[in-house]
């Protein structure tokens, strides 16, 4: 397979958007997309964790392959990701306490964001090389941020409109996500 870096990026960003096409990272997508000013930083923080996790996973996979310890892959990935999240948390706390407070409990939750583990697992399954892995993780993170920001903008608008109160809350968010997902299907075939 000779997927170019550009193709991988576009695919991860739009055609196979992590949230809307692959169903990864839905918990923060539904949880943090209420307001635009937390959605964007959350997306950026997740992207950063993805990048770190992807780099670590790439190195780790080489190591595990060398020792033929593939069956430890999952457990070591998750430990690496948890550590990466901790690292991001500490960096944020030191350099941007304001953002740290704004993201609150969502930061540690990045650990259980399937999108992050998903990046690590998919890049391994598809046997991406170093450059491909990096583009894949950045594209995936950007796609996640894009979905989050789109969703947040729509939901901010919706708070002003008259919605039947039966449909308020998660059900409405899911319907919105469905419509967004429908429109993202139009991007399919773009990276070909």
């Amino acid at each position, binding site marked *: 397979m000779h997927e170019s870096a550009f193709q991988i990026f576009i695919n991860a960003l739009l*055609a*196979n958007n992590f949230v809307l096409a692959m169903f990864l990272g839905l918990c923060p997508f539904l949880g943090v997309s209420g307001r635009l000013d937390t959605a964007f930083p959350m997306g950026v923080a997740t992207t950063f964790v993805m990048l770190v996790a992807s780099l670590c996973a790439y190195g780790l996979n080489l190591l595990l392959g060398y020792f033929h310890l593939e069956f430890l892959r999952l457990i070591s990935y998750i430990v690496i990701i948890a550590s990466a999240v901790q690292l991001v948390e500490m960096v944020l706390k030191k350099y941007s306490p304001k953002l740290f407070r704004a993201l609150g409990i969502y930061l540690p939750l990045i650990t259980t964001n399937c999108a992050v583990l998903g990046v690590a697992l998919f890049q391994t399954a598809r046997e991406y090389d170093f450059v491909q892995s990096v583009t894949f993780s950045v594209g995936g993170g950007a796609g996640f941020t894009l979905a989050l920001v789109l969703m947040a903008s729509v939901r901010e608008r919706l708070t002003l409109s008259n919605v039947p109160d039966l449909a308020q809350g998660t059900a409405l968010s899911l319907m919105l996500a469905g419509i967004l997902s429908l429109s993202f299907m139009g991007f399919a*075939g773009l990276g070909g």
Partner: protein
Amino acid sequence: MTEPSEPSVSAAKVIPIAVAGATPPVPPASPTAPMIRTLGLVSAICGLIIVGAYQGTYDAVAANKRIATERAVFKVIPAAQSIAEYVALPGGGIEPRVGAGDTAPGGVKFFAAYDAGGKLAGIAAEGGAKGYADTVRIMFGYAPDCQCVVGIGVVAMRETPGIGDKIITDKNFLANFNALDVKLKGDLSALANEVRAVKHGAKTSPWQIDAIAGATITSRAVGRAINDSAQVLLPRLVPNLDKLRSKS
């Protein structure tokens, strides 16, 4: 560290929050030793469980994988009764593939399929190309006698149900692979004619694939998958075909 008292049976039926209140308060910071002890213990237990599961399922998983591969190969080469795995090396030679380890860098995996009499029935190889939604991975059968592709099967794809997945059901499309021409050039360096999917109804030569109307992108991916794989594999394989003629 003091051991918290065992919650009584009656505590168990209280809702969790009440139980949390009943547990003695944990000291503000535990000493390092118990942390390391617990982490060490957990890692040891988990390590044992994982290794146990890996060893316990290894044979079954390997057998399953072999059966799946055989089934895929038998589908594209119906006469086949048994298969042997080979690797086509970048230098041009071929060698039997042993073990389940990774193939050598640049090597291309393929399968030699033999009929009941132990004679070479065909060669099967995998190929992949970007389709509409994701990579379409296919297996194709190659008949050395006519130097053509004689069948395809899909290994993995995520194409749109009802549109892209016609590549496994559409009879007219599958008819392309009764004898798809993949002859090599005189010097055996590459295919004489690039395999390509052309628009529905525009097929003129035996090396072209008549695409499915409405699923052109997926059809094209199949064409590219065959072409890319064949361009690499066949120049290495064809000079060595005699080594494969009968089952070793």
